C-alpha cells in the first residue's frame, strides 16, 4: 500500500456506514470510552469536519472536529478525535487528516484551533507541535485513565492572543 491508495473525504451524511466505521475505529483504539451521543453531537452538526481516510473502501482513519463561536467573540475550532487503524500507522495518515481539517477550519474563518492530548502521547504531541500548536494549559487528570492532558492551541488570527473578556463582541465590529 502506498499513500496514493488512501482516499480522504468528509463524512457522507447519507451513508450510515461512515458513522459506524468511525465509531468502530475510535472504540478500538482510543482509551477514553465515548457514547453514541458524543459521536452524534459531532457528526450531526459538523459532518464536513469529520474526515475519513479509506483504503480500498475500508475506513482506516478518521478525524472528528467542530467549529463554533467561543464566548461570542472568536471562532474556535476543536479537534475531538483522531484515530488511525494500527495496521496503517506511521504513514502520515493522521497528519494528513489533521492538515485537511485545519485547512477546512481556516477557510471557515477560524481564529484558533484547540485540542487536548495526553501528556504521555508523544506521537500526537509531536504531530501537533510540528504543525505549530502551542501548549497553553496542563489539565490535571483530564482523562479517565488519570493521565494529565495538554491543551494545545493553534493561533490563526491575532484574536487568539487576546483574552476573551477583552475582545469586542461581533456586533461591535464595524
Amino acid at each position, binding site marked *: 500500500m502506498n499513500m496514493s491508495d488512501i482516499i480522504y473525504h468528509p463524512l457522507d451524511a447519507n451513508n450510515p456506514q461512515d458513522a459506524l466505521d468511525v465509531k468502530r475505529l475510535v472504540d478500538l483504539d482510543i482509551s477514553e*470510552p465515548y457514547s453514541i451521543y458524543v459521536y452524534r453531537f459531532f457528526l450531526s452538526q459538523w459532518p464536513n469536519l469529520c474526515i475519513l481516510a479509506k483504503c480500498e473502501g475500508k475506513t482506516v482513519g478518521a478525524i472528528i472536529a467542530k467549529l463554533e463561536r467561543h464566548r461570542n467573540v472568536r471562532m474556535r475550532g476543536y479537534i475531538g478525535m483522531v484515530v488511525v487503524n494500527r495496521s496503517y500507522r506511521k504513514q502520515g495518515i493522521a497528519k494528513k487528516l489533521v492538515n485537511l481539517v485545519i485547512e477546512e477550519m481556516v477557510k471557515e474563518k477560524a481564529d484558533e484551533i484547540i485540542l487536548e492530548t495526553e501528556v504521555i502521547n508523544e506521537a500526537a504531541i509531536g504531530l501537533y507541535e510540528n504543525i*505549530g500548536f*502551542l*501548549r*497553553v494549559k*496542563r489539565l490535571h487528570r483530564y482523562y479517565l485513565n488519570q493521565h494529565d492532558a495538554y491543551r494545545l492551541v*493553534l493561533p490563526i488570527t491575532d484574536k487568539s492572543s487576546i483574552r476573551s473578556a477583552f475582545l469586542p463582541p461581533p456586533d461591535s465590529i464595524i
Partner: protein
Amino acid sequence: MAENAFVPQIDILNTQFTDVTSLFLSLSASSIPPNQVVQSSSFALFEGTHALEIANKHLDTSALTFPATESTVADFNFNNDSPLQFDDIIIIVDKLFRLTFLWLENNQMLSTTVLSCVYVEKLLLNYTKGKKITTKQDSLKFATLWDYQTEEELDQLYSQLKSYQKEYLQLSQTDGQSPRARFLKNYILTHTTFRSLLIGLVNIMSQLIQLFRSGVVYEEEDVISQLPQGLEVWNKMEDSVCQELVMGDIWAKKVECVTEADAATTNGLKLELLLSYSNIFKKMNELTRLLTRSFNLTNSNNDTIGIGYGSEFVDNVDASTPTNPNPTQVNTEFLESMVSSLSFFESKQPEVTKIIQTNTNIYSAQCFSQGIQKRLSNTRPLNKLPASEDIAGMSYAVINVRYFKSLMNWLKEVNYLMANFNVTNFRRFLELVFWKSGSVGSFDCGTTWGETVVWRSWVQLFMIRDNKSLFGSDVKLCEVMLGQMNWFAGIESGWLNMAFGGCQPEHPRVNASSSNNVQHQGVFGIIDTDPMEFIQRDLSIPKSYHGGDAVGLPPKPQKKNKKKSKSKTRSPADVGSLSLSSFNGEAPASIMRSLEMIINYDLVFMESAKTPYYCSSSNIKVSHREKLTELLGQVESTVFEWMSNISNNPSRQRQILSRSIVNFDSLQVAAERFDLWTHEELGIKEYTQFVPRKQQLSAILRDLPPALPFATYVYYLKLQTMLQYLLKGTPLQIYKPWEWSCVNWYGAYFADNLIIVLNRMKQCNTAKMQKLRYKIREVEKLENPAKFAKLVELMKQDLVFKYHLSEVNKFAGTTTTTTSSSSSSQSVYKTYNHQCLEILQLKLAKLMKVEDSLLDEMNYYESLKSMCRGTHQLLEVYSNLGVSVVCKPEFTWIETVIAKASSSSSSSVGFSDDDSFMAKLFGLRFKSFSSVGVPDPLTFSQFVIATTKDQKYLSDNNMVNWGLLKSNFDSILLEFSRTKKLVKDQLDKLEKESSDGVSNSFGKYNQLTNLLKCSIQHSLTIFKTKQMIETLEPESPIMSKTDIAKLIKSQNYAGEIQYEVGEGEASWFPLVKLVKK
C-alpha cells in the same frame, strides 16, 4: 425521529406532567433505528455527550457479567462459616489502608479501592440502610459488645450465641483450645476487632469525603469522592468511632489472652500491628477536628490545643491539657503518633509481607471485587481494580512521607509563625505557601507539599476559614493584605492613619466593636481605638515575651536603669509595649490618644502647608469612609481568590494566577484612583522624597511624584503574580525547550520591574526615615521651653492639633491659652518631649527594619533576574550552536495555509517580525499579560531586538564569531555567579541572625538553599560546556551557523535536558546540558 418534530414550550410551574415512558417505549422507540438519537431543538446535543449509553460494555456496568465466584464473594460478607484469623485481618486492613491512599493518590474511584472490599461495602450498606441493627443475623454481623467485658459476661454471650457455635468450632478442631476459647477467639476477631478497624477506616474515608465536599478541590479532577448510589457517608461519628476502636483494642488484647497457648511472640507482633492500625485510625480524627479550632494570632502565649474529645477512651491522649478556646499553637502530637505507627509498619514490612505470602485463607484474597460497581452504581464506566504492583508501590514509607511527615513539618512551621506572629512573619508564611515555595516543603522528608489532594484541601480550610479569617483568629485576610502594605509602604503614612482611622460603621467588624464612636473605629477592627495601635501591633511582642518563655525572641529589656531602658536600648519590637502611661498613670484613653496624635503630627509639613492637612479619623466624612470601604471590599475579594488558590492542583493554580493578574490589574487602577483622591481631595500629601523644611516646599512639591502607597503595593503583588504565573509553566512542562529563551527573557523583565517598584518603596521609606530624623532633631531642639512654645503656637494653626493639645492641657491642669511660661505646663511639655523622642527613635528603628526587608526582597529578585538573564543568553547560544533540542522550529506549512486564507496580502507572513506566525505564537504564549496596563506587554519584535543585541558574537549576516561566542560563556557564568552570591549573602545573613539568637523560619533556609544549589548546578554545567566548546577547533574564526552545527554534530555533541534540578524556584530553571552521545 425528525429534528424539530416537536418543540415544547413548557411552563414548568403550571404544567401537569404525564409519564409517557411506556408509550414512548412501545411506539416511538421501536421506530428509532439502532445507533440513532432523538434530536430536538428543545435540547442541545451537547447535553447528551455526558450520558452513559445503556448496553455499551465500556460504559454500562449493569451489562457486565462476573465470574461465578463473584456471587460467592458478594455473599460472604461477615460470614460465620469463615471466621477470620489474625493473619486475615492484617492482610485485609493492610490492603485497605494502601487502597485508601491509592484512592487519593491515583484519583481512583472508591468502588475500585476502599469499597472494593465486600466487608466495607456491607458495613456501609448496613449503616445506610437503617444505621441500626434490626435482625438477629445483623446482630451477629455487627453486634456491639459493650456489655461483654468480664468473664461472666463472656459466658453469657457464649450461651446466647450457642446456636452459632457449631461453625466456629469446626475451625481448629485440633488446636487444643476449649470450645469456648475457640468460639471467643473467632467471634471476637471477626466481629469486634476486625469490625472496629473497618469502622476506623471507613471513618477516615468519610472524613476525607466531607473534606473534599467542602468545595475547595475539584471533583473528578482532584479526587473522586462520589460514593456509589445507595451508600451514605459516615457523618459526625468521630467520638463513637474512637470508642469502637478502643473496644476493638480491648478485645484484640483479650484474644491474645485467649490464645495464650499459641506462639506468643508471633501473636504479640500481630497484636501490635493491629493496635498500630487502630492508633492511626483514632488519631486521624484530629485532622478534621483542627478545622474547627480557632487560634489566637495576636496574643501569643505558650498554650497548646487540648485534644478535648473522648479522651477517657483513647490512649496516649493528654487529658490533662486544658481546653483552650484560643490556643496559639497546634498540638502535633496526633501526627507524631501516626508517623510513629507508620514507621513501625515500615520497620515490620518484611514480617507483614511474609504473613501475606504465607496466608492460604482464600477469603482475605477474594473479598476484594469489582462487584460493587454492578451492584450499587451505574453512574460511571466500569473500572479495573488497581494492579497488585500499584498497591505494593503505595508503601508505608510513601504514605508516611507524603501524607504525615510533610503535614507535620508544615504544622511545625505554622507553629513557628504563630509563636512569632507579626506582619513580617506572616509575610514569610504567605511566601512559603503561595509564592516562592509553591512546591517547597520537603525539609527532611524528600517530598513536596501541595502534591496531595488532602494537603491542599486541608491546608486551605485550616488556614482560611469560612468567615475569611486566618486560622479562625480575629485576623482577616484583608487585614493581612493591608498589614503587608503597611509594612512595605504605609508605616508613618498619613494614608494609613486615614485608612485605619475611618470606616463606615456598617462594616461587620466595626459593628462587632464595643465602641459606638465611629471616629475611633478601625476599618476592620484592627484598630478599635486609635490608628497608632495598628502600627504598633505590627511589631507587638507576645505576652510570653514578658514571661521570658518564648523561643527566639529578644531578651526581656532590663528596666533596672531607667535611662538605659530608653529607645537606644530597646528593640523595635518593643514599640507595641510602649505607651504613654508614664505621662500620667491615671490619664484616660482619650488623653493618651490626643498625646499620640500630637506625636504623630507631621511637624514638617504643618509648618510649610499653613493649612490643616493632617487627615485623621476625626475629619473624614461619611462619604469618604464609604469610598474606602468599597475599595477594601475589592481588596478582600481579590486577596481571597489569590490566597485560596492553595487548594488547587499545580495546573489549575497557574490558571487561577492568570485570572488573578486581571483582578490585581483592576485593583491597581482602583487603588491608584483612591491614592490620587486622598492626595488631591483629602490633602494627604505623600511623596517619594523628603524635602527639608527650610526649602521652598510648595515649589518643590509640585514637581514631586506622589507616593501612591496603595497602588504601588498592589502593583508589586501583580508583578509577583505575573512572574509566578510565567515561571510556573516550566515545571509543568507547558513550554517547549525552544520557548525557554523568551520565557526567561520575559521573566527578567518582570524581575526588573519588581526591583524598580521595590526601589520606589525603599525611596519612600528613606524619605520617611529622613523625615523622622529631622523630627528627632527638631524635638531635641525643643529642650528649650521657649522654642517649644514657639512651635506649639505654630501647631495651633491646625484645628485638629489644637483640639488634641487643648485636651492634653486641660488634663494637665492648664488651658489652651496657657503658654509655656506656666510651670505646670512646662513640666507637661518636658515629659512629652522625652516621650516624643523615645517614640520617634523607635519608629526610626522600625523603618530601618522595613528597609532591611525591602533590601532582602530586592536581592531575591536580583537573583531571579540573573537566573532568567543567564538562561535566556545560554539558550540563545545553544540555539546558534545548532543544539536541536532548543532550536526554534519552522512552521512553513501553517504559515502558507494562513497566508492563502488571508484576503489581504499585507497580513501575510514574513513582512515583519510582528506579522510572522512566530509572533502569533509569542502573542498566544503571553496572552495573559496582553490586557495588563503596566508594565507594558512585550512584543515579539522587542524580543528579537533584545536578543540580537545580546548576541555580540553574531554579525549582521548571521555569521558567528567563534572567539566572541566562547567569551559569551563568561558573561553567562557571571549571571549565575551573581545569583549564587546574592543567595549566599542572604543565607549568611540568616546564619548570623540565628547565631545572634533570632529564630528564623526553616522554610526560608530551604528556599534559599534550593536556589543556591540550582545556581551552582547551572554554573558547573556552563563551565563544563565552555570547556567542551573550547576543545573544538573550527576551520575559521568566523563561521556560519550551519557549519557550527555540523562541527558540533561531528563531535557527537547533543543537548540534554534535566528537569529535576530541585524544588521551588529551582524547578523553574531546568538544566540544558551539552553532552557527548
